[in-house]
């Protein structure tokens, strides 16, 4: 294909990527949007194929990768979405490093001059660095999110000094690489190794629960990195697709931080979100709470007129989405008005609860966003808090609290509150929750799925 035809095909692919994201503006058009994304990718790959000579090798690799990808996509549990995104993300990071190394090895195949110009060297350096960090970061995020590694932040003294030192060494190696007339492999490889290490060191102090912000941020970075490669090889499609991904990751990080009411920097500098290690109710007095059984709760639910269910991270952990669907249906048949209230950052990803409830096929009109339902809590008989904690913590109204100002679901305004969780342990933010000690609150201890199943039996 002529360069012009290639450029035109890439433009068409770019338009498809834009249409893919546009499609996500409503659930009706979303599947079509995803299809557009596939078409765009197919065009991009097919077009690039005409520029290469090793068709068999490349198609073989695509087939192998494709089969693995398809199997993973088919098998994965919906509750494991955060891990999956982290896992896939690490692949993009590693691929980026491989590409950069291979470009240093043979610039001509990318349309770059034989002797790399300084600008390209800088771009390749950035590409390697971001790719390596993405890889280390995503791997750790994956391990922490899937419970294969403790979510506790790994903090040691001199941490920031060590990072700074490594960064300085890396930049020094980079300068050596820039100013070497021939390709300086020693410098480049040392640089890459330090980048991997640094990526690792920068991510470990960040608590497991903060990983979604990290993933989103790394996603954004990888977008910018793709755009950067687009700049250096003069490929507008990479610039456009990269910018789309970059904006998306940045906006999602922003939304998450905003909804948690925490500055982005404090998330990234880490040391927060330790796995409930620090118990916080240290005001001396022993506070009392009331606990009940699933049977008691089922009885009360059955006799109420209106119920709002607030799902949280515990729903995902316990995989209780199908059980709760049944409960909602059963209550509905008894004439109870059942609705679900979704907090924007309930769970561990934006929109996490929506996906789980969609999986359980809970009807659309029963699932309401925070703004739509918050004023209805005061008119509600029973709020059933299911594995949620921070998103219903009234401490958000208390000046000086770490989550002060974070918008919450006003469960405390309902006539009766039921909280299903395994213990009195704290949630993501590590804060005690006054809601659990209110007179009208009943705690029901146990795994969310088991408790809901017991309720079903009792009803």
């Amino acid at each position, binding site marked *: 294909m002529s360069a012009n035809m290639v450029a035109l095909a890439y433009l068409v692919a770019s338009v498809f990527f834009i249409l893919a994201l546009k499609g*996500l503006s409503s659930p009706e058009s979303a599947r079509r949007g995803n299809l557009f*994304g*596939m078409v765009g990718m197919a065009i*991009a790959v097919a077009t690039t194929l005409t520029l*290469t000579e090793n068709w068999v090798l490349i198609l073989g690799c*695509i087939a192998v990768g494709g089969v693995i990808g398809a199997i993973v*996509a088919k098998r994965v549990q919906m509750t494991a979405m955060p891990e999956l995104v982290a896992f896939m993300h690490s692949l993009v990071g590693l*691929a980026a490093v491989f590409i950069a190394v*291979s470009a240093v090895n043979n610039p001509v195949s990318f349309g770059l001059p034989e002797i790399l110009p300084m600008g390209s060297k800088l771009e390749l350096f950035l590409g390697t660095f971001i790719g390596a960090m993405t890889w280390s970061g995503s791997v750790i995020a994956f391990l922490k999110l899937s419970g294969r590694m403790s979510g506790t932040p790994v903090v040691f003294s001199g941490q920031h000094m060590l990072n700074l030192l490594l960064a300085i060494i890396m930049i020094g190696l980079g300068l050596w690489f820039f100013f070497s007339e021939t390709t300086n492999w020693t410098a480049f490889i040392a640089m890459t190794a330090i980048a991997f290490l640094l990526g690792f060191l920068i991510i470990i102090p960040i608590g497991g629960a903060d990983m979604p912000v990290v993933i989103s941020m790394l996603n954004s970075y990888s977008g910018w990195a793709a755009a950067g490669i687009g700049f250096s090889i003069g490929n507008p499609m990479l610039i456009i697709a990269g910018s789309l991904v970059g904006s998306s990751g940045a906006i999602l990080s922003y939304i998450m931080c905003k909804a948690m009411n925490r500055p982005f920097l404090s998330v990234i500098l880490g040391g927060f979100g330790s796995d409930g290690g620090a118990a916080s109710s240290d005001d001396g007095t022993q506070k009392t709470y009331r606990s009940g059984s699933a049977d008691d709760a089922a009885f009360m639910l059955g006799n109420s007129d209106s119920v709002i269910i607030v799902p949280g991270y515990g729903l995902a952990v316990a995989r209780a989405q199908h059980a709760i669907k049944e409960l909602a249906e059963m209550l509905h048949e008894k004439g109870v008005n059942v609705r679900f209230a979704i907090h924007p950052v309930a769970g561990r990803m934006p929109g996490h609860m929506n996906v789980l409830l969609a999986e359980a096929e809970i*009807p659309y009109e029963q699932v309401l966003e925070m703004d739509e339902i918050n004023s209805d809590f005061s008119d509600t008989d029973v709020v059933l808090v299911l594995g949620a904690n921070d998103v219903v913590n009234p401490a958000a109204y208390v000046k000086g609290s770490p989550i002060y100002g974070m918008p919450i679901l006003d469960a405390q305004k309902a006539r009766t509150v039921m909280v299903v969780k395994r213990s009195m342990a704290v949630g993501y933010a590590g804060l005690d929750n006054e809601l659990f000690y209110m007179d009208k609150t009943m705690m029901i201890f146990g795994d969310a799925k088991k408790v809901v199943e017991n309720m079903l039996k009792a009803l």
Partner: protein
Amino acid sequence: MIGEIDPFIINLTIFVLAIFVGYHVVWNVTPALHTPLMSVTNAISSIIIVGAMLAAGPAETDWGVWLGAAAVTLAAVNVFGGFLVSQRMLEMFKKKDKKGNT
């Protein structure tokens, strides 16, 4: 005029416009679909497969080509995995739609 100016500035123009497009398009995504958005953009970010294919492209196969081939494989996992899992997820949102008021 466009002939005389540095390609960098043209790329910059495209970049700036693409950011505006991305900004608007992403803010228009409904919050309920933020998780699918993450997985779709994750799939799109595997557009770097284009770079991997170029690396694996040359006929004389040295180690750089093999590295490129490895990159193609990794990116392909992401392409297929990303789009297919998004489809699975979005399929659920469809089912819910149909049911209407149960």
